[in-house]
């Protein structure tokens, strides 16, 4: 063991695990302390909907094996919340009264679910958010102890729709309420939304777009239903708010670390204070395509940023090329993938698309200056990653544009040089 001050990680999800991997790739010795509010072993957050549906058991929730901490020399302090970061003395304080020193620090406090503050009635029994293992347990227990016939999910984004999938699996009649004109509005266009909605309606899901909940109604402290802005009343015994997550920057702000909507970092994931890094849903990510900085709460992004931060904490010189907004979502058996800029406005964009009503499959590619900047796949998603690669590498597609929508499109359609680069498997970055 080295007598160096340990690396300290706040958080225990993808960004934290990525950081451990980044550190341990070069440094097997320096101790790592990991502190997390949740008591569980590192687990897969997106799996909570599968747990609720009963498709995975508690053991399969784990994101890494039971021996992960031991194998990586990590002292995991779980079920303990960091209450303060002292950047001056290089220590953190926890809610059980302890103080932990650090040499370098990684903040991966993630995002916190949003509940509309000014909405009356949200304290009724039966109202939940859905981002943690504990949320899944509480919803499961609510369903087991209350006769839940109907559920309402507010928010037709990724978390909301995965909640819907789980509830449908459990045989609960479910209604989605979405403020935008379409579901998955961050990554879907209207057509993709309609294809998916047709499919979901076939599974008995009701969807109300362009509206939201204006009142939560209860009876004797227990949820009874919701009133929508358009006047629709929906009785329900279970209500899940899935209208998004915001970066949980409280600790960082308290320590005087520069924050916008999320923690601000450089391309090496270091914050405004030297030796303190941040990664995952808590940071502002530079968009690879637009250059804009904004929270981009997706798992591959979190892991990659964590890995980069970890490598740099041990003296590496990795830099992020920026995040690419993307989603892979299977909705009740309908596979979908969307990447990059998918619903652009402006004359500089060229759209290629094909819709097959019969099979319910849709493919759309968005081009700018003969480079693909966005893609949507619904129904048929096979080999979609080739397009993600073309987007990421900003490959000029003018030489094979007419092949892009072909179902046989493959590596063989690509220019030789790019194909060789991809096929080598070297230097490929997420």
């Amino acid at each position, binding site marked *: 063991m080295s007598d160096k001050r340990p690396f300290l990680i706040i958080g225990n999800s993808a960004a934290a695990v990525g950081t451990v991997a980044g550190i341990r790739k070069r440094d097997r010795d320096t101790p790592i302390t990991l502190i997390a509010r949740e008591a569980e072993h590192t687990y897969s957050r997106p799996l909570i909907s599968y747990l609720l549906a009963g498709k995975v058991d508690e053991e*399969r929730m784990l*994101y890494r094996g039971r021996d992960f901490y031991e194998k990586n020399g990590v002292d995991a302090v779980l079920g303990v919340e960091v209450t303060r970061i002292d950047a001056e003395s290089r220590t953190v304080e926890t809610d059980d009264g302890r103080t932990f020193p650090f040499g370098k620090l990684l903040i991966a406090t993630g995002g916190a679910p949003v509940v509309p503050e000014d909405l009356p009635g949200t304290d009724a029994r039966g109202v939940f958010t859905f981002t943690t293992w504990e949320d899944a347990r509480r919803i499961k227990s609510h369903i087991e102890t209350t006769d839940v016939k109907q559920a309402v999910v507010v928010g037709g984004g990724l978390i909301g729709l995965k909640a819907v999938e789980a509830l449908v699996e459990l045989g609960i009649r479910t209604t989605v309420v979405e403020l935008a004109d379409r579901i998955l509005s961050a990554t879907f266009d209207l057509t993709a939304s309609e294809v998916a909605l047709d499919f979901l309606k076939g599974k008995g899901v009701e969807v109300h777009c362009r509206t939201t909940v204006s009142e939560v109604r209860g009876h004797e402290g227990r949820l009874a239903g919701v009133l929508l802005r358009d006047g629709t009343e929906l009785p329900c015994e279970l209500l899940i708010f899935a209208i998004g997550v915001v970066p949980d920057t409280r600790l960082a702000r308290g320590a005087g670390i520069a924050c916008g909507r999320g923690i601000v970092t450089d391309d090496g994931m270091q914050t405004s204070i030297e030796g303190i890094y941040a990664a995952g849903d808590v940071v502002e990510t530079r968009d690879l395509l637009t250059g804009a900085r904004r929270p981009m709460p997706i798992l591959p992004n979190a892991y990659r940023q964590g890995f980069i931060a970890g490598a740099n904490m041990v003296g590496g010189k990795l830099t992020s090329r920026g995040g690419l907004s993307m989603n892979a979502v299977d909705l009740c058996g309908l596979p979908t993938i969307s990447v990059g800029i998918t619903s652009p406005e402006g004359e500089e964009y060229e759209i290629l698309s094909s819709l097959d009503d019969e099979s319910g499959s849709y493919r759309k590619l968005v081009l700018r200056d003969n480079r693909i900047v966005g893609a949507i796949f619904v129904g048929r998603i096979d080999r979609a990653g*080739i397009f993600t*690669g073309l987007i990421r590498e900003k490959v000029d597609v003018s030489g094979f544009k007419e092949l892009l929508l072909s179902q046989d499109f493959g590596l063989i359609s690509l220019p030789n040089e790019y194909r060789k680069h991809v096929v080598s498997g070297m230097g490929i970055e997420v």
Partner: protein
Amino acid sequence: MKRIIAHEEHCIGCRLCEIHCLVQHSKSKKIVKAFRTERDRIVPGVKVEESGYVSFALQCRHCDEAPCIEACMTGAMHRDETTGAVLCDVDRCVGCWMCIMVCPVGAVARGADRQVVSKCDLCIGEDVPACVANCPNEAIVLEDEDE
């Protein structure tokens, strides 16, 4: 680690690699039986692409910094510690298709049941993967990087 290298100038597009991959991953391990009865249940990990006079066989590159491992939300996609191969633990895969979204080679596919992914495993337990062993023209060969 060992890697499979494709030589497209030698590939004659016979697709024997696809068939031998299927046989290797079948229950019966017998070519005729596997082809007749298990073809719909197994998605070969190697795929021949063909256009005009050009063809090549391609399977997972087992990348050094594998995008699929980093993007996997369950931890199912992992690197085998002894061989270095990128493998998917199908018991932990839930079919979210993140790996399909990020694989620039397009080498991860939905399995035949559409529930979990299917990909090249470099033929666990074999010295030489079935596709390489059965290629009649050395269009896919095994090279050991460490040597």
